C-alpha cells in the first residue's frame, strides 16, 4: 500500500502543473515557499549578451581563425548586427598583408619630379601588377587594429608578418598574431608559417602542431599563400577604384622604414559597398607611397577621424642572400602531417 507522496513527488506534480499554468495551485502538503523560490529563480534569469560585445567577439574569433588558416579574416556568416562592419575588417586585414606584396612589386617608375596625388596613386596601382626588377626580398610589416572604433570593447589585434621571397616560386611567410585586451594584457597568441620550395607548400600551425602539405598552384596569383596573393583582391582593388570612388589629396612627405614617401589621403569612398563607403560611418584611407618605387609602405584607416587600423612596413631588403633552408620545412617532432599533394585542387 502506497503512503503519502514525498516532497519531491509533490514538487514534481507542482512543476508540471505550473508549466501549464503559472498560477497553478500548490498540491496539499507542499511548502508555499516553493512558489517564492520559483519566482525568485525567475528573477535570476540572465540577460542576453549585448550585441556590441557579441559582434566584437565574433570579429576577434574571425581574426583568430584567419591566423589559423593563414588567410585574411573573412566572416562567411557574420552576425547580422556585425555584417555592416565586416568588410571594414576584411579591408584592414587585406591591407595588412598587401603592403608586403606591394613591396615585392618593385618597379622603377621614374624620378620624383612634380607629381599629383592622382598620378601617385595611378603609379602605385601599376606597381601592384608588375612585379619585376628583383631577385628576392625580405620584408617585415606590422599591423594593428583597434576594435573600439568598430564597436568592439577596446581590444587590439596586432600582427607581424615577415616574408622571404626568391623568384620564381620560393617563399616563406611567418605570421604572429596577438590579441591584446583593453587593459594591455595579451589575451591570445597564435602563429602560422607557410613555406614554398617552388613545388610544395607547407602550412604549419603552431597552435595544434599540424603541418599541411599541398602542391604549389601553377597559376600566377592563384595561390593565396604565395608571395603576391593580395594583388588580386586587396589594395589593388582600392587603387583601381580610386579615380572613381575617392578624391586623393597629397598631404605631404614622410619617411617610412628609412624610405622617402608621399602621404596621400584618399578620404572615404563615395561608392557604395567599397570598404565601408556609403555607410553611415565610412572608412577613410591614407597611404604612404614610396617616392622611388611607388610601393605602398604604410596604410592607415580611420572612422570619423579615429584611427582603427595601421599597417606599416618596418623593414625591407632587396636582392640579399637568403639561405636555402628558408624555403624548406621540416615538421617539428610530434607534428601531425596531412599530405594533400596527391589530390586534385
Amino acid at each position, binding site marked *: 500500500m502506497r503512503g503519502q507522496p514525498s516532497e519531491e513527488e509533490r514538487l514534481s506534480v507542482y512543476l508540471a502543473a505550473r508549466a501549464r499554468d503559472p498560477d497553478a495551485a500548490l498540491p496539499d502538503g507542499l511548502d508555499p515557499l516553493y512558489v517564492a*523560490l520559483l*519566482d525568485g529563480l525567475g528573477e535570476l534569469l540572465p540577460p542576453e549578451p549585448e550585441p556590441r560585445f557579441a559582434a566584437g567577439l565574433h570579429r576577434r*574569433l574571425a581574426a583568430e581563425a584567419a591566423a589559423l588558416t593563414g588567410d585574411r579574416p573573412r*566572416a562567411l556568416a557574420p552576425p547580422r548586427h556585425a555584417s555592416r562592419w565586416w568588410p571594414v575588417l576584411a579591408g584592414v586585414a587585406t591591407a595588412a598583408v598587401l603592403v608586403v606584396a606591394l613591396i615585392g612589386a618593385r618597379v622603377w617608375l621614374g624620378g620624383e619630379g612634380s607629381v599629383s596625388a592622382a598620378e601617385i596613386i595611378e603609379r602605385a596601382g601599376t606597381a601592384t601588377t608588375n612585379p619585376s626588377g628583383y631577385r628576392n626580398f625580405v620584408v617585415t610589416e606590422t599591423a594593428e587594429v583597434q576594435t573600439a572604433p568598430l564597436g568592439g570593447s577596446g581590444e587590439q589585434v596586432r600582427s607581424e608578418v615577415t616574408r622571404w621571397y626568391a623568384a620564381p616560386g620560393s617563399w616563406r611567410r611567418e605570421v604572429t598574431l596577438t590579441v591584446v585586451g583593453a587593459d594591455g594584457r595579451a589575451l591570445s597568441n597564435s602563429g602560422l608559417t607557410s613555406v614554398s620550395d617552388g613545388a610544395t607548400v607547407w602550412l604549419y600551425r603552431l597552435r595544434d602542431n599540424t603541418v599541411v602539405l599541398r602542391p604549389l598552384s601553377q597559376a600566377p596569383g592563384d595561390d593565396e599563400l604565395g608571395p603576391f596573393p593580395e594583388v588580386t583582391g586587396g589594395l589593388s582593388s582600392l587603387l583601381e577604384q580610386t579615380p572613381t570612388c575617392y578624391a586623393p589629396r597629397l598631404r605631404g612627405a614622410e619617411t617610412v622604414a628609412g624610405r622617402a614617401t608621399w602621404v596621400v589621403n584618399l578620404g572615404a569612398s563615395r561608392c557604395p559597398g567599397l570598404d565601408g563607403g556609403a555607410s553611415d560611418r565610412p572608412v577613410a584611407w591614407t597611404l604612404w607611397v614610396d617616392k622611388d618605387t611607388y610601393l605602398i609602405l604604410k596604410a592607415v584607416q580611420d572612422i570619423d577621424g579615429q584611427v582603427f587600423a595601421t599597417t606599416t612596413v618596418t623593414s625591407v631588403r632587396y636582392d640579399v642572400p637568403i639561405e636555402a633552408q628558408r624555403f624548406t620545412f621540416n615538421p617539428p617532432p610530434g607534428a601531425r602531417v596531412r599530405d594533400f599533394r596527391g589530390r586534385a585542387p
Partner: protein
Amino acid sequence: MVQTPCVGERTAVVDAPAGPSPPDDAALVAAARADPRQFGLLYERYVGPVYRYCYLQFGARAAAEDATSEVFLKALAGLSGFRDGSVPAWLFTIARHTVIDLRRKQRPHRSIDEGAEIADRGAMPERLAVDAARRDALRAALAALPADQRAAVELGLAGWSGEQIAGSLKRSRGAVYLLRTRALARLAKSLRRAGWSPEGA
C-alpha cells in the same frame, strides 16, 4: 536563438522542445574543422547560452563577457581536439573550467550574511534592500548545491534545452529532471534556514 523555458521561469518548468539537432551541430563542427573561418556559425548558435551561463556564475556583465570570450577562443583553438560528441557538452566543459579559472582571480561573491547586512544598513529603500538580500541568499544557496544539481538548474536558467543539458551532464533527460527537482527541494531547505518566507518579503 530560441531561449527555451527553464526552471524558475513562470511559463514552464519541464523540458522544452529540443534545441538544435545533433546532425546540425556535427555539420557545423565538421565545417569549422575543415575551415576555422566557419567557426562563426557555431559561435552564433551558442554565444547566447554560453554567455547566459557565464553571467549566472558571476552576476556581472564584464566578467560574463570575459568568460564567454575565453570559452570561444579556447573552443576555436581546441577544434582539432574535439571528438564526435555533444557540442553543448564540449562548450559546457570549457565554460565550467573557464569559470573556475577566472573565479580564482576574482573576489568571492557576497555571502548570505553580507546580503543580510545590506538589508540591515537601510542605505537604500527598504524594499530594494530586502529584495537584494533575498536574491543574494538565493544565489548563495544555488552556489552551495552539489555541482550536478547546480548545473542542471543554472543551465536551465541560461536557456539551454533539456536535451542540451542532458548532453552536457551526460545524463538522460529524465535524470536531469530528477536532478532539478532535487535541487529545488534542497534550495527550499537552505532558504528556510536562511529565513526566507513564502510571502516573498
